[in-house]
C-alpha cells in the first residue's frame, strides 16, 4: 500500500506522539475494562435484585448518550472547586481534568457497555450444568470463574476487549471537552486530527485519518473473526 507508506512518512513527531498516547490510553482502558467489566458482567447475569434493570440501563447509557453529555458532566465533576473533584485533589494533590488519569476514567465510563455486553453474552452461553458440576466437585466460585467461565467465554471476552479498545480509539467528544489538548498528556489522535484541520493542514490531516482508518479496520476484522469462531 504505497499511499499508506507515504502518508505515514508525512506524520510529524507531534502526531506520532498523539498516536502513541491514543494507543496507551486505549491499552490502559482495556485493561481496566477487563478487570472491572468481567465481574460486573457476571454479577449482572446472576443477580436477582429488583434494581438489575436500572443498573443495566446505567451501564448501557454511554451507547445512547451524546459524548458531549458525558464530557460536560465529567468537566463539572472533575472541577477541583467542589466534590467529587475536590476529594481527588485532597487525595492526590492534583486535579483530574486535563490529565491522562482523567481521560482513563472518562474512557472506562465511555467504553464500558461496549465491553460488558459481549462479556455478558459470552458468559451467558456457558451451560449451567458445567458450572454446577464445577461447584459440586468442590471448586470455589473464584476457581470456577477462572477454570470454567474464562476458558469457555474467552472469544466473547476477546471480542469485548477488542471493542472496548477500538471504541476508546474513536473517542473524540468527551476528550474534546475535558482534555485541553495537552501534547503527550491529553492530545489523542482524534484531537490532533481535529487540530490539523483547524490549522488547514489538510495533507497531514489526510495522513492521520488514513492511519486511524487502517488501525480501526484491522481491529474490527479481529472482532469479526473472534465472533465467527465463537459461533462454531
Amino acid at each position, binding site marked *: 500500500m504505497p499511499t499508506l507508506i507515504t502518508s505515514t512518512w508525512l506524520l510529524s513527531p507531534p502526531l506520532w506522539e498523539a498516536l502513541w498516547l491514543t494507543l496507551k490510553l486505549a491499552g490502559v482502558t482495556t485493561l481496566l475494562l477487563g478487570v472491572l467489566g468481567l465481574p460486573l458482567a457476571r454479577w449482572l447475569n446472576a443477580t436477582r435484585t429488583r434494581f438489575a434493570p436500572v443498573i443495566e440501563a446505567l451501564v448501557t447509557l454511554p451507547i445512547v448518550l451524546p459524548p458531549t453529555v458525558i464530557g460536560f458532566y465529567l*468537566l*463539572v465533576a*472533575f*472541577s*477541583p*472547586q*467542589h466534590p467529587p*473533584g475536590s476529594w481527588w485533589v485532597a487525595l492526590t494533590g492534583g*486535579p483530574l*481534568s*486535563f490529565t491522562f488519569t482523567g481521560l482513563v476514567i472518562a474512557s472506562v465510563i465511555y467504553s464500558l457497555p461496549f465491553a460488558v455486553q459481549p462479556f455478558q453474552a459470552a458468559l451467558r452461553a456457558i451451560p449451567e450444568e458445567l458450572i454446577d458440576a464445577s461447584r459440586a466437585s468442590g471448586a470455589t466460585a473464584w476457581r470456577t470463574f477462572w477454570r470454567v467461565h474464562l476458558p469457555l467465554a474467552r472469544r466473547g471476552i476477546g471480542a469485548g476487549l477488542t471493542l472496548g479498545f477500538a471504541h476508546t480509539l474513536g473517542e473524540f467528544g468527551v476528550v*474534546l*471537552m475535558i482534555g*485541553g*489538548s*495537552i501534547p503527550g498528556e491529553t492530545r489523542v489522535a482524534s484531537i490532533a486530527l*481535529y*487540530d490539523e*484541520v*483547524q*490549522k*488547514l493542514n489538510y495533507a497531514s490531516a489526510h495522513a492521520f485519518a488514513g492511519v486511524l482508518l487502517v488501525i480501526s479496520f484491522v481491529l474490527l476484522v479481529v472482532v469479526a473473526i473472534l465472533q465467527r469462531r465463537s459461533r462454531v
Partner: protein
Amino acid sequence: MRLRRIAVILACSGALCLSAIGEGIRIAAASNLQFVMPALVDAFRAEYPEAKVSVSHAASGNLVAQIRHGAPFDLLMAADTHYPQALIESGHAESQSLFVFAHGILVLWPQPQEQSTWQEILADSKLNRLAIAHPEIAPYGQAAQSFLKHHGLWENLRSRIVTGENAAQTLQFVQSGNADVGFVAASLLVSLPDSRPGIEFDLGEAALPHGAVRLTKSKRGTAADRFLTWLAEDEAVEILRDNGYRVP
C-alpha cells in the same frame, strides 16, 4: 394511496427546504461572535425588514473546511484575517470584499482582587492551571501566547497551561473551576452572568483583527454585500463596541 401521500409529504418538505434556502443570507461566524451576532442581526433587520439572516457558529477552521466543500454560506465572519485569506487564495471568497470589521480584546479573567495586577496573578505560586485558547488554531490563543512570550513568562508557565479549542471553551474551563484563570475574549465576558472583573490588555492597534468576506458561491450577493456595507456603519460599530470589541 399511501405511497402517494408519502410522495406529497416529501414534495412539500422539499419545497419548504428550498424556500428556506431561497430566502435570506447565511452567515458563518466564529464562535467568539455568538453573543454579538443576535444584536447585529436584529439591528440590521430593523433597517431592512425584508431581509432574512441566519447565523451558524463554529470554529473558523471547521467553517473554512465546510465552505471549501460546498457549505451554502454567503458570508464568513472570522476571528482573524488568516482564514478569510485562505478562502480567497483557494478561490472560495471575493478578495475585494474582505474587510476588518472589529478587533478583539484579550482579557485575563477573573481578577481575584481589585488591586491585583496581571504580573501578580501570573506569578502566584498557587496558580495551578492557566487556560488559553489553542495558540495554533485560535487567534485569542495566539495573542495570549505572544503576550506571554514577549514578557518572558511562556517557558515558566508552559507546564501549567491548558488549551481550549476556541475562545468559548477556554472561558468554560475557567468558569467551571477547572482552571484558575484564563486569557479569554472580552466579547464572551460581556454576556456572562458571572460579574467578576478581569484585566484587559492593550495589544496595539492591529491586534486581533476580525475579518469578514463574501463567498464566491453566494447566491444572494446583493443582500450579502448590503450586510457587509452596513457592518461598517455607525450603528453596527456601536453594537460591536458595546459587546467587547474595539473598532478604531
